[in-house]
Structures are given as C-alpha cells and as structure tokens.
C-alpha cells in the first residue's frame, strides 16, 4: 500500500523558507519507506483556482472550506506561477464540478521517478 501523509501547521509561518529542516526529520525523510516528500511554502503564497462554468476564478490565498475533502495531490513542473495556474485550469476542465485546486509552491523535496 501507498499512503500520503498530510502535515498541517498551526498558523502562518513567516520564517519557513529560511529555516532548515530539523536533523531528526531529515533523517526520517531519508528512509527507504519514504518514497517522496515535499515541503511547501507557507499558506500566504497559495493561490486557489476554481472553475466557474468555464471561467477560471483565482483567489489569493489557500483553500478554505470545510465541506470539501482533500481528494488528491499532483506535483508539476512549471516555469512560473502562470504556468502552474494554466495546468491547474486544464485539470479543472476534467474534474467534477465544484472542485478547487490550491496551487502552492514547493520549497524543497525529494521525488522518486516513476
């Protein structure tokens, strides 16, 4: 089985980018059972995209709504935020109505190739 472990931090973390990953955590992330990880920039860097009947609506900030559930995680490579938003919009063209995608830059990570 494969699992996704989703980590939530208590509040907006402004100094996140300049603080290294702690030694203990780094050790765990290097273990062979960890197949990949991504450390995300703080929520303030997020942009949420919604499909409103074909029109893409952008919101400045993370996804906040309790009715929806986290359905998936997709990692992409893009030149800049415009590229990432374009891919998000493309994805929203294929997903169920009411889906939202939060686009968050990755600070650091390790990914095992397919």
């Amino acid at each position, binding site marked *: 089985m494969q699992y996704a472990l989703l980590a939530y931090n208590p509040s907006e973390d402004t100094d996140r980018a300049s603080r290294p990953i702690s030694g203990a955590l780094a050790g765990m992330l290097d273990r062979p059972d960890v197949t990949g990880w991504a450390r995300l*920039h*703080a929520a303030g860097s*997020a*942009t949420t995209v919604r499909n409103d009947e074909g029109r893409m609506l*952008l919101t400045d900030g993370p996804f906040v709504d309790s009715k929806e559930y986290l359905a998936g995680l997709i990692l992409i490579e893009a030149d800049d*935020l415009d590229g990432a938003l374009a891919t998000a919009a493309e994805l929203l063209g294929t997903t169920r109505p009411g889906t939202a995608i939060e*686009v968050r*830059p990755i*600070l650091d990570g390790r990914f095992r190739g397919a």
Partner: protein
Amino acid sequence: MALDAVFRDQWGRVLATLVGILGDIELAEDAAAEAFAVAAERWPGDGEPANPTGWLVTTARNRAIDDLRRRRILAGKTKLLIRDIETGPRPQGAVMDEATVIQDERLELIFTCCHPALALDVQVALTLRTLGGLSTDEIALAFLVPFETMSKRLTRAKHKIRDAGIPFAVPPDHRLPDRLAAVLAVVYLIFNQGWGGGRVDLAAEAIHLGRALAGLMPDEPEVLALLALMLLHDARKAARLRDGRIVPLDDQDRSLWDTRQIDEGRALLRRAMARERSGPYLVQGAIADLHLQEPRDWRQIAALYQTLARQTGSPIVEMNRAVAVAEIDGPQAGLAVLDGLDLGHYRYFHSTRAELLRRAGRDAEAHHAYRRALDLAQTEPEQRFLADRLAETAPSPKPGERRRRAAGP
C-alpha cells in the same frame, strides 16, 4: 526640478530596473531606498548627475551586492543570485556606470503587481508603493487602515510574488487582454478612491500612473482612453466642491474647469478612437466628454451607457443610464430603469433614486431614499450635500417653512 519631484519621477523606473536585476521586490526596494538616501545627501552639494536613473540604479545595485555578500549565511538560493549578478550578461562587477542605458522595466513591474493571483486590495497597495512611490504610511492613510496592517499586507504580497514565482514579465499576447484589463482596473480604482475621498491625492497618483502607462503602451486604445477618462473627470475637480459640499454637475461653475486638461483628454480620446478598437474605457471617456458639453446630448449619453452596459454587464452602468433616460423621458421613466436593479448596498444608487423621486414630486419617498444614501455616505462633502437634500425633502407642516430649514443655521 526639485529633488522631491526628481525622486518621485525616478522611483518607479529605478525600482523596476532593480527588480529586473535582483529578482526580488523586497531586496530591490531596500536597495532603492538606500540609493535615494545617498542621493538626498550628495546631490544638493555635488549637483544632480547627468543620468540620474543610471546613477541611482548603479548605486542601489552596488549596495545590494555588498549587502548580499554580508549576508552570505543566507540560503544557497541567495548565493546563486549573487553569482548570477556577478557573471550574468549585465556589465561586469561595479563598472556599470551612469552612461549605461537603463531599460525601462516598469511595464514588467506593473504586470507583476497587478497579477490576478494577488487580491485586488493588495494589487492596489503594491502598485502605489512600487510604481507610485507612495510610502506605506501614505497608503495606509489613503485606505484608512493602520500602518501595521498595510505594512503586513505589502510584505506578504512581496513574499508571495517571490515564493510563488509570479513572473516579472509583460504577459504573452494570448494573456495580454485580460492582464491589461486588470492593470487598468487597478489604476481606475485608485483614481476613484481619490475622487470620492480626497485624503492623499490618489486621483493625481492614478493620473501619474496612467501617463506612465500611456507612455509605455502608446498603441493600446484602452490605455489612452483610461488616461483621457481620468483627465476629463479630474478637470472638474475645482468645481466639484463648494462650502465643503458636493456640487452636482449642472450647478458647477464652469469657469473653474481645467480647460487644458480637458483639451488633453479630448486629444487622447481622438487618438484612442483612431485605433478602431473599442473597449469600456473608450466608451466611458466618450461619455465623460459628452457630460462636459452644454447642452448635454442625453440621447447620445443614454445610447453610450447602453453600449457600455452590454460590454460590462454592470448594474452601475444601468443606474447611470437611468439618469440619462430621466432627462429624456422624465423622472418616472428613469425610476422604472432603477427599479429593476439590485444595488441596495450601493450608496449612489440611493442618492440617484432619491434625486429622481424628488424631481417626480414624490418627496416622502425621496426623503427616505436620501436617508439611506446618507447612512451609506463615506465622505463629509457627500454627507453635507445629502443632509441638505434630506432637510429639503423632510415632511413639513407648513410649506413656507421648507425653504428656511433647507438653508440651515
């Protein structure tokens, strides 16, 4: 030119170039602030350099590099950045001198600041800070928020631009129309904020930004039209207030209108129309122009509002059309247009409706509508004007008393 004016003029250009070099708005802003401080110290004695932009950019860039060297302990990303600067395609080391032609990158900067991934109020604040050169203090004052709130908002925005990778670039053709519309909306929002309020002169800021845009994009009709629209509205500034009260256009002293500004606005409109591409700002500019003519051609004004309503789908445009319809077919016809609109939250809806009700002789309803408008009014001149009208329409036991009460103490 006075030093203040030179600085104001240079800030946006210098900052934009530095963002291009350093790749980070916050770093660029710190470096620019340092360079301007050095200039303020030296220029009065040494004289202004022949190429002030080049001098400021060179000074700021050298300071930024020194500063980054001092902070080598920072993440590897920053070291990369220093290497980029030192070995990049730009002139080597510190020899970039005053003769270096500085490319104007303000367009890149304004497209970054008005990126749709930033909230609108953030776009506005950031544009005023980076291109307008307003201080955080001034922006906080203009939007009536505490300094700390505005400071946090700006810092967060700069971090988001850096962390999320919001591009520092003029958008490609397929994205340009939408993105340009966003930029123009920000400038016009700044203008309108200033027009109703009059705390910091935001209207002047918006016109300043509009001029810069018109210089950078001389072939975009909507850019020219927005500048024209702002100039035409702003030309009536001196006539809009009397005794601290708003003066309706018909009662304004036309000798106070700025004819030079009106001429400039009209010339810009002609240039924009010659491009044969219409947009909402061109239509609004044409309407603003018609409003300045005497007598006003209400049929043409109503027709243009209809065009604009189709382009924008805005109920506020419909509200304005109702005023023109009232002039053509009487206040009842105008009220019929207003009845279909869902604008109960909008303060000018109530004052517009009240005015038409008053003209229709429905004083009691007008009084009620003026009350609603007054409750929503945001500036003192508006409040005073509405308070007068409220008193005029107040139910009075003896008709003879009305006039005296309207005149006030």
